[in-house]
């Protein structure tokens, strides 16, 4: 760090010509932040490697002396692979449907003027503020009336819809940044409006679509409340229900639970890794066309 500037300089300086010491400090700080970010998860890993359900230990060692893979085996024996598979199938299909539905609606909101448009947008925005747990009972009643209890249909439909408001806001914000002249040129060439949307807008919106997909995926992947009331049979469980079955009335099988927890984090990590190149450019959080 350059002594005459102080800490503020170090942080706010853009670092193109940063000194070696400054760069070193940057790396040190980032490494520290990374440790803070992953340490709690390493502790979960540590529990998953301990034999017996020893959640508690005074040792801070990540890999215990008596490490074993027994908990992972236990998780697999209880049906872990099936739960993960169920979750993956449901989540991937809902994320796809959700993004498709939202991308079309967002286009209507971005390119047309109609009565109630602002009202609609505000409504969509306001739905984000409803405490989710409150909707469970009426949702259950609908699911019963439509015969969706104990089926994946109910979950696929519910998850697809639940992410739509957020996706519409995000995609509309992104579409708004795409110059309208691009479509106008295509319309002059004789393409239909839908054709222009499909050929010009969608490809240009890849980053934002990817982010929507990621958000939809995460919402469905992590859901416990809805899955709990809609699915019953163990063979159909998604992973949150499966892991919940390790938590008993008073006692919890922490070993197997932690092993499962480590493993369910992997698909999300992969997805984050794949989408990382869009993650930064695609995050345009909504706008009100003013």
């Amino acid at each position, binding site marked *: 760090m350059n002594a005459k500037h102080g800490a503020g300089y170090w942080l706010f300086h853009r670092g193109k010509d940063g000194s070696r010491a400054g760069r070193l400090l940057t790396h040190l700080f980032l490494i520290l932040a990374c440790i803070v970010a992953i340490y709690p998860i390493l502790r979960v890993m540590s529990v998953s490697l301990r034999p017996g359900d020893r959640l508690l230990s005074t040792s801070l060692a990540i890999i215990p002396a008596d490490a074993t893979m027994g908990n992972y085996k236990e998780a697999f024996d209880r049906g872990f692979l099936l739960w993960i598979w169920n979750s993956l199938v449901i989540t991937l299909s809902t994320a796809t449907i959700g993004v498709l539905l939202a991308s079309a609606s967002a286009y209507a909101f971005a390119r047309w003027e109609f009565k109630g448009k602002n009202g609609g947008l505000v409504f969509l925005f306001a739905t984000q503020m409803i405490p989710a747990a409150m909707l469970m009972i009426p949702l259950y009643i609908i699911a*019963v*009336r439509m*015969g969706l209890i104990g089926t994946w249909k109910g979950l696929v439909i519910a998850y697809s819809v639940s992410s739509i408001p957020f996706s519409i806001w995000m995609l509309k914000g992104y579409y708004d940044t795409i110059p309208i002249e691009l479509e106008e040129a295509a319309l002059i060439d004789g393409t239909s409006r839908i054709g222009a949307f499909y050929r010009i807008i969608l490809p240009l919106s890849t980053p934002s679509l990817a982010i929507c997909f990621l958000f939809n995926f995460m919402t469905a992947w992590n859901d416990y409340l809805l899955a*709990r009331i809609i699915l019953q049979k163990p063979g159909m469980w998604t992973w949150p229900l499966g892991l919940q079955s390790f938590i008993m009335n008073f006692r919890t099988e922490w070993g197997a639970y932690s092993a499962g927890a480590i493993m369910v984090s992997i698909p999300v990590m992969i997805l984050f890794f794949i989408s990382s190149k869009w993650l930064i450019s695609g995050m345009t959080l909504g706008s009100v066309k003013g």
Partner: protein
Amino acid sequence: MKRLIAMFIVVLLAFALVAGCAKKVAPPEDVVIEMWTQENEKEALPYLQALAAAYTAAHPNVTFEIVSKETEVLREDFQTSSLAGNAPDLLWTVSDHAGPFVVAQLIQPVDSLINMNDYVESVVMDNKTWAVPIAAGNHLTFLYNKKFVAEAPADSDAMIALAKQLQADKKVTYGLVFNQLEPFWLVPFLGGFNGKVFAADGVTPTLNTPEMIAALQFFYDLKFTHKIVPVEADYSAADTLFKEGKAAMLINGDWSFSDYATVLGADLGIARIPMIKSTGKYPAPYTAGKYYMIAADVTGAKLEACADFIKFATNYENQIQLVTQYKRLPGLKAALADPVIANDPILKGSAEQMSVGTPQPNVLEMRAVWDAMKPEMNKVWGGKMKPADAAVAMQAAAEAGIAAQK
């Protein structure tokens, strides 16, 4: 005109959608019983699955769909599904669920279906019996590791002295451990000091009493005066310490026996929680149990099948199997009298403890009382509150909680 046609098509479409989604009805001669249980794979779920399979083998037209849910989840989900008219038919659950279910009219009386004289005391409200006992118990008991404790201490003073001695000799880290988080562990000691949670009417909480203060003071002394319990111990901590031989004595429920028997083998001792020296009375844990309950709107052939299955599942042979396999005390009188219980040291200790227990109230008010006791008791454990103040706060919180339920 055009708009009219448009409307017509939309309405038609809506009808088509609704019709397409309508539920298909199963043929009448086959009965599918949907059953929820709060047992899980590590508990008696395999036993229940085997019972169902055996019943189906004998009655091929009756099949079962068994779903396992955590206790609280089962209660919430049963309420929700009843509201939507989609409740399961049969439940295997804990007795304290009967309170809310009866109040909300979600289960039906069983007197006319099953001869209740064959069973131990069951859930009776409004002069009707609402559940069939599967296993009695669910009570807290005193467990000790024979490596450190030759014989269960005679009274609370002896227990404290022994714990101090063991700690002084560095044989164990803690003399006594138990789940300090839950008021379920406070209730036995309240009883040991002659206190009760409810007044004689069964619904008015009596938490601000000298007896409650004495019980809380006992807890406070265990930790701060005698220093024989950990600073903080939830269920897992107590469990881990006892299993690892770092604690000599444990207070835990009958559901945990088979687990400890596996880990400690012959070193496991089970007895009554030691008598409170100053009152000469044994601590009185809540006793409850697991019960079959039938949903309110089950009728006809399905109801008959449910009742018949319950009779089969609680017959002598099946009850004895539950006793030997899971170390639980049976709900059928004939099985309870069987010598297999007197001959098993674990079951004998459990039965002795149960004989001084108090049946856990099934009333809805119990919920408010649990919630009222928990934080205040924990403040005493944390040294943040005097027992006398905690008792006052508990009473006020319980009364407010009960008022809120109505």
